[in-house]
């Protein structure tokens, strides 16, 4: 009997380190929405990476006849200015993704930090930080972007990627912070946190060792939400024309297409591809966001009995 028990344990132990990377991914793939989102997003990332090396033509050069419909040589046709649309789409994927991801990562970090400390620190700090969060929630991000944008236009500078990311982070972190704050408030009342306070853990230690672990699915979900906001924000900034319009991304592509009234002049091959790609990217972020929410919030989860037939215990079931 004992022998058997030990055997089991050694089996469990070998793939332990490997597990640490694979396990979150596996959890992600147990949810259909998350799985679909993950596959689309992976496709997008591969598309973005390849686009940095293998564009059929130079995406910056105006070297072809303008307004050519899709053909064998130009599968998505050319712009009014004679650029190859597919090359632009291919090349512009990476910056679009990068801005989305950067806003997602930086924004989520800030909201974790602010949200958890508000939810778990003293009452007074909580109300101060909650006030700050609410102020940022009330400020309309769009207005702020336009304000910054027109300022930059005024001084004859255009918003590069870095300032764009910065503005989007400033306008986008508060929503996640509010989520983290309220979740932390409810977790802080749970017995296993009270227990840690009783044995003498410091609040900082509880924050890092327990709360962040407990809300991990929410962190991931929030990352995708903020990344979606980042992508949308970039598109919006570029669409308003306050960004640097010489940068190639899906936002600037839309700007030029719409500015040249591509939708009126019948250049659908110019306007549709970036719109389509942006929509698909946002869709994948939304799927991942919803999926992770379901994983993290048991009440949203439809329990899948088939999955558990193997005798596996679903790790995220609230026991």
């Amino acid at each position, binding site marked *: 009997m004992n022998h058997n028990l*030990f055997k089991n344990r050694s089996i469990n132990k070998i793939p332990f380190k490997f597990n640490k990377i694979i396990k979150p991914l596996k959890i992600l793939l147990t949810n259909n929405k998350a799985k679909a989102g993950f596959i689309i997003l992976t496709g997008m990332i591969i598309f973005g990476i390849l686009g940095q090396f293998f564009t059929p033509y130079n995406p910056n050069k105006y070297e072809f006849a303008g307004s050519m419909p899709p053909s064998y040589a130009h599968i998505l046709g050319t712009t009014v200015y004679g650029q190859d649309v597919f090359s632009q789409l291919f090349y512009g994927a990476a910056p679009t993704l990068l801005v989305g991801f950067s806003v997602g990562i930086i924004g989520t970090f800030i909201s974790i930090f602010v949200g958890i400390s508000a939810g778990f620190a003293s009452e007074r700090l909580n109300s101060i930080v909650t006030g700050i969060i609410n102020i940022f929630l009330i400020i309309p991000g769009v207005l702020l972007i336009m304000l910054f944008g027109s300022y930059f236009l005024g001084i004859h500078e255009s918003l590069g990627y870095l300032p764009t990311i910065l503005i989007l982070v400033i306008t986008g972190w508060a929503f996640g912070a509010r989520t983290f704050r309220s979740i932390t408030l409810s977790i802080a009342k749970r017995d296993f946190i009270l227990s*840690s*306070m009783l*044995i*003498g853990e410091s609040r900082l230690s509880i924050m890092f*060792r327990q709360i962040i672990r407990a809300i991990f699915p929410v962190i991931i979900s929030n990352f995708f939400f903020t990344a979606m906001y980042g992508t949308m924000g970039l598109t919006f900034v570029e669409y308003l024309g306050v960004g640097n319009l010489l940068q190639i991304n899906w936002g600037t592509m839309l700007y030029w297409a719409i500015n040249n009234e591509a939708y009126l002049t019948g250049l659908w091959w110019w306007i549709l591809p970036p719109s389509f790609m942006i929509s698909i990217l946002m869709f994948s972020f939304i799927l991942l966001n919803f999926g992770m929410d379901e994983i993290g919030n048991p009440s949203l989860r439809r329990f899948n009995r088939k999955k558990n037939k193997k005798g596996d215990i679903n790790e995220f079931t609230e026991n």
Partner: protein
Amino acid sequence: MSLLRTENLSKIFISRRGLLKSENITALDNVNIELNERELIGIVGASGSGKSTLAKTLVFLYRPTSGNIYFNDKNITKYKSGKIKKYRKNIQMVFQDPYASLDPNHTVEWHIKRPLVLIKYKGNINERINELLNMVTLNPPEYYRNKFPHQLSGGQRQRVYLARTLAVEPKILIADEPVSMLDVSVRIDILNLLKMIRDKLNLSIIYITHDLNTVSMITDRIYVMHDGKIVEKGNTINIIKNPTDAYTKELIDAAPNPYKRI
């Protein structure tokens, strides 16, 4: 000299109902209890009588509305964070629900290691973990160390939790209905474990329960609690045989007779 004593301890919760209305709930009403060294006392009361509130007030998870708490005859009611931390090295609490008191993201080993690290345990921490697991009869310890809470039964979890509190090496242990969520068959084991711990480690234990059967098995003295008030106190056997308070009589009548059943 008593180890822990309360003096007219009261706790009033103010619960808001809507914007303007608020309702006061008197969870503790002038409670006086006393715990001596190496004593195992019981606090008995029906659901909602304020037992958990009393336990949580004694470990400073709640602040009393009025009254005093004495530890070693020293008034500690007004203690602030640093001193509370020191005081908690002397007193630990086992929670009612073993399914909620262990962190689902951490192993058994982690749960016992943390208090050892925090009290700066001098010896070999690894050996000490095994020792503690043995003490709560989780054998062999190596088998349990890497388990996560969801891989354990309720009884096993409560043992792990007990080991976690014992790692702190407290003088007092408050067990808040430690077996109410458990299977009847496991209850006796855990209660015997409490008794054994008291005898072996010279702990003082406050055992909280709504169940008169289990309280008569292990405690020396009991307090009967009703609506936040202590309505009766004294030797366990005496009270169960000759209850003077009407509420205690009710409780005893309501409880199934253990001698009939076994």
